[in-house]
């Protein structure tokens, strides 16, 4: 006769183990597989999931005082609205459903996610927006994902944002990779100066881009797969997309191409925080059409390499990215985005998971340099954005954590006008609560 207590304990232990497994029981730390596929034979018809991120940010930058009152440029204000230097915000509130529509057939799965928070995706109309909507067909030869989803690219962009170890992106990801789209009607602020700092008055927003940010996403088709070889996991992706971000349609006949390769030495664990050493490289190439002149086109090229190491208690990441064309020149200068400038940047990230505690400490150093070529400036003038961020995370439980970060910034430009705008850019502090469900 089996003792009932033993069985109760066994079942309880199993339930706990199963519960923990549910958090991490997904493919290894391979974003292509994690986001684009489901566990064959072991995924439901519709798994509802999502996360909420609520935050407070404050910026200690000094305004530009030009005799015309206090003026501001984007780095001195909190996004996405750029209307103040401190604010509470629900920056992400995402609700999604994913699974295998016909559970008997794991060869087809889907992924749907909507954004209800307030950020660059939704800031302009305050409505919810679909951020991901894709179907994946798994064949013996390859996997085919079609729809709206994250493009294969840099680790900081491709990783799931709800496990991102910081609150704000690096300058290189924010400026070089997070594409801003310019629409008819977008204008640089004026007065007091064209493309210059802005006085915070009603109707005089610093944010002059009316379209949602690209959110590292595109609508298209991707061929990808993961190939295991011993302890190594090699993955590839080839994608063709509209090159128009979250917009479902295309605005020109050119298609963007995305190439990606990653090889990871797996060291244990599963899911987003699987341990391993990953090296990767990627390339994006596309063409953009001027929003006011369809005959005027500009190539947009991006490429990068990186390495990520995670073996608790340590984590280290390095990424280098470079780009040519469509270099972002500031949220207040949409008319300067259509250009053939070049830019490059990198970041180094270090993490330490304090043993036997719920604490995690993070340090990140990032640098981004863009050719300025601002009207009136000398050729090849450069602007450089250096940031050092220290952060700490306290994991209340497996699904909930508090993140606090402080960024020291040193922004400089060889262009006198831009240098004047960047004068006084100071530190930024943020605290964020994340809950995943």
């Amino acid at each position, binding site marked *: 006769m*089996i003792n009932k207590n*033993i*069985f109760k304990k*066994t*079942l309880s*232990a*199993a*339930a706990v*183990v*199963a519960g923990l*497994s*549910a958090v991490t*029981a997904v493919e290894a730390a391979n974003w292509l597989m994690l986001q684009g596929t489901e*566990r*064959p*034979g*072991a*995924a*439901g*018809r519709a798994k509802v999931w999502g996360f909420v991120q609520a935050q407070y940010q404050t910026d200690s930058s000094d305004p530009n005082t030009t005799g015309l009152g206090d003026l501001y440029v984007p780095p001195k204000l909190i996004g996405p609205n750029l209307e103040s230097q401190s604010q509470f915000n629900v920056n992400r509130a995402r609700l999604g459903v994913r699974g295998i529509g016909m*559970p*008997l*057939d*794991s060869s087809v799965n889907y992924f749907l996610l909507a954004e209800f928070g307030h950020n660059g995706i939704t800031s302009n109309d305050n409505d919810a927006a679909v951020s991901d909507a894709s179907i994946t067909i798994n064949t013996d030869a390859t996997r085919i994902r079609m729809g709206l989803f994250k493009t294969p690219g840099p680790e900081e962009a491709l990783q799931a944002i709800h496990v991102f170890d910081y609150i704000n992106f690096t300058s290189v990801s924010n400026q070089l990779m997070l594409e801003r789209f310019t629409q008819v009607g977008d204008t640089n602020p004026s007065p007091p100066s064209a493309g210059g700092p802005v006085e915070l008055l009603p109707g005089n927003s610093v944010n002059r881009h009316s379209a949602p940010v690209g959110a590292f996403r595109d609508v298209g088709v991707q061929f990808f797969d993961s190939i295991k070889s011993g302890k190594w996991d090699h993955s590839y992706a080839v994608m063709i997309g509209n090159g128009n971000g979250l917009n479902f349609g295309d605005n020109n006949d050119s298609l963007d191409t995305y190439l990606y390769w990653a090889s990871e030495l797996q060291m244990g664990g599963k899911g987003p925080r699987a341990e391993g050493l990953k090296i990767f490289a990627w390339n994006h190439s596309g063409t953009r059409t001027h929003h006011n002149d369809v005959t005027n086109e500009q190539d947009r090229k991006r490429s990068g390499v990186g390495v990520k190491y995670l073996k608790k208690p340590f984590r280290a990441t390095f990424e280098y990215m470079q780009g040519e064309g469509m270099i972002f020149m500031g949220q207040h200068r949409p008319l300067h985005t259509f250009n053939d400038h070049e830019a490059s940047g990198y970041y180094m990230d270090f993490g330490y998971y304090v043993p036997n505690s719920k604490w995690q400490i993070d340090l990140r150093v990032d640098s981004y340099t863009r050719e300025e070529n601002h009207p009136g400036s000398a050729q090849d003038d450069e602007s450089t954005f250096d940031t050092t961020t220290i952060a700490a995370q306290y994991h209340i439980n497996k699904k909930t954590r508090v993140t606090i970060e402080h960024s020291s910034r040193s922004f400089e430009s060889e262009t006198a006008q831009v240098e004047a705008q960047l004068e006084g850019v100071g530190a930024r502090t943020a605290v964020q609560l994340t809950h995943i469900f």
Partner: protein
Amino acid sequence: MKKILGIVAAMGMLLASTAQAGEFADEKIVLQISDPNPFKQTLVLNVAGNVLKHYGQDKVDIEIVAFGPGLRLLFAENANKGRIKSLTSSGVKFSACKNTIRNMGKKLGHPPALNAAATEVGAGVVRIVDLMNKGYKLIKP
């Protein structure tokens, strides 16, 4: 001498046949998986593993009977196939309901490919009843 050898041989055959049926195990447990919830797949495998760990491989007989939506656990492609292989090597048996296989085959257009560890049984429920009649205790995580 011949009689003695004959008796020993007969006893040996008897022991072998009863041991196959798990007669000498301290505990005999049948686990039912019939739920479509993938979480239940993890749970039933965890329970099997924990029971094995508690009693020891030689002291417990475990059979997992899958039918209805729960048969997906025994699909060849199932993401838990590594754990199934491990449990099989520890003596856990897996039974797949033929009725479910037939019905799923109609929907798929072909019979589902099953894990090599799965043994097809006439009907999952009947298999459970048969095992209970042999002294197995039914656990439905």
